């Protein structure tokens, strides 16, 4: 069931189980030899929507090259958590470090972080008034000041990688959902991000198109991209993830290797969740 690749990824040992819901717990991966800075570090992060406490004491450290799958019931704060990482949502307490840069209210610093963090949305969020090529080259040209020819060359490179180079001159509205999502992935890649966030990338797709998007993501993972993926695709989690993060009611309830997460869940809530979704 699991490919040979799962064996190669032996650097994953970190298992963490939250026992008391209210107590703060730091997440220290077992292998922390870190000479390199972690890609993302969240320390004691809290967030409220009005009176609603959406994120409660989130502590998570993501090393470079790590692939994290975040799952949990709807409304558990998983999307909000990864949206905090590129400051689409503002957190109210705690510290978020992205590649060593702290996210504060400083807009310039937020723009800098966003340049290096790619994001793929549930509803693609491609720009409907621009062609696929223009969607891909917009940010490289305007943000990175890449010359147009070079940006287009790079765009074609990534379109070939997501296997739709022939759609370059079409508008997003002319593509299928799966193709649009692959364009969205290519658009994020064109900024050469150090980290990619996926917010339920396959939830809005027709069943027949889920696989083509997941294939693209697996390929990306094999290339060593650091990825945080919010998804309900448990097959993807099994195959690709280094760690699975399970969230409920705004808290991280359990963090584990996919093997242990599925075979041997520790927390009651995790067991309940898995029994609900695994048919």
């Amino acid at each position, binding site marked *: 069931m699991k490919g040979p690749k799962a064996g190669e990824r032996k650097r994953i040992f970190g298992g963490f189980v939250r026992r008391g819901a209210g107590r703060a717990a730091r997440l220290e991966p077992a292998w922390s030899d870190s000479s390199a800075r972690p890609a993302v570090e969240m320390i004691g992060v809290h967030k409220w929507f009005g009176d609603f406490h959406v994120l409660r004491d989130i502590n998570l450290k993501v090393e470079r090259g790590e692939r994290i799958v975040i799952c949990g019931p709807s409304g558990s704060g998983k999307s909000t958590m990864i949206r905090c990482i*590129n400051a689409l949502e503002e957190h109210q307490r705690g510290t978020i470090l992205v590649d060593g840069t702290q996210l504060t209210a400083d807009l310039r610093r937020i723009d800098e972080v966003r340049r290096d963090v790619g994001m793929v949305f549930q509803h693609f969020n491609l720009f*409907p008034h621009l062609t696929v090529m223009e969607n891909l080259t*917009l*940010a490289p040209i305007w*943000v990175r000041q890449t010359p147009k020819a070079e940006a287009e060359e790079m765009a074609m490179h990534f379109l070939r990688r997501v296997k739709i180079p022939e759609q370059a001159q079409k508008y*997003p509205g002319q*593509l299928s959902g799966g193709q649009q999502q692959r364009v969205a992935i290519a658009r994020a890649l064109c900024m050469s991000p150090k980290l990619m966030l996926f917010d339920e990338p396959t939830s809005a797709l027709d069943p027949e198109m889920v696989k083509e998007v997941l294939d693209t993501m697996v390929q990306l993972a094999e290339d060593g991209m650091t990825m945080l993926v919010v998804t309900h695709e448990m097959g993807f989690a099994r195959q690709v993830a280094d760690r699975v993060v399970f969230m409920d009611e705004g808290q991280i309830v359990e963090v584990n290797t996919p093997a242990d997460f599925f075979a041997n869940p520790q927390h009651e809530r995790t067991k309940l969740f898995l029994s609900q979704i695994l048919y």
Partner: protein
Amino acid sequence: MNTPPATQAAYVRQTPVAQLPPPASQSGIVGWLRANVFSSVLNVVLTLLSLGLIALVVPPLLDFMIIDATWTGNDREACLASAERPVAGACWPFIWERLAYFTYGFYPVAQRWRVDVFFVLLAVGIVWLLAPRAKARLWGALYFFVVMPLLSYILLLGWPRYGLPYVPTTLWGGMLVTVVVSAIGIVFSLPIGVVLALGRRSKMPLVRLFSVIFIEFVRGVPLITVLFMASVMLPLFVPDAWTPDKLLRALIGVALFASAYMAEVVRAGLQAVPRGQYEGAMAIGLSYRQMMALVILPQALRTTIPNIVNSYIALFKDTTLVFIVGIFDFLRTIEAARVDPKWATPVTSTTGYVFAGMVYFFFCYLMSRYAHDMERRLATDHRRRRKRGRR
């Protein structure tokens, strides 16, 4: 599927069904009539009522404008009813003779070529900027927004040192004034309106407050009041030497007035752009200005084209209000000419108004058609998306 298992457990299609053309009642003239004109009882009634209305209005209008009309003549005598011509229709010679006045107002006869050149410059600019297949549109924009206004200013007002005698704006009139006022209003109201709309949605309280106050104040006051303020009140407060030209004051008044309305139109468009577009733009690292200029505004303005053109058409007609402060716009010249004793007949006023109506209709319909065309040109990807990309 649920056929009894004894006879047939499963079904497998052997031959594909080919695509067939739709039945005749769905297409062609018959289909069109059925779908659009006689589709329901109410529509049948409306169709018949409309036909009746057309029969009531159009023949008398044609009688007046064409069949009974006077086409040649030198003064009022030609247009009067007489024994051999009991009904006198439109008095067209009056329009021919006064056409120059309607176009230039009191602009000195010897200098009127300058106005003609201005009209040509403007037409070139409009075509260059708006024609679907125009080349080098960026240069077109530079010409339209920088070169042409400067040239027109010098041309119309004059530059005595280089042999263009000074023509004060008090002598301007007719179509010239209508075109200048509406062109300035149209060109300035959109960018100012965009800035105000963005200001109203800004997170900075001071900017937002200023935008809201400006928009609500200007919208809450009739244009006539704005014009009165500009032309009557302002000189009372400001020394003569500082008072800008009367036409200029009216221009500024009209432009600001139109901007307030435009701001709300643009704001509606901004709100129609889904949140995901903002997030998509932010997530790839665009700054606020880049996001607005490259992603949000193009979509917002596209969805509001009908409303923008609506404002433009209203503005074009509203410009007639400048006559209140003594500026001779197109309609005012007709008003002035129709009481000229030389042409005083029972039909002169009607003729003048019919002519004015035709001219205004021509310009407004032109704008409306162009906007409709542009909408269709720009909306292609949206429409396809609605049809195909349901999910």
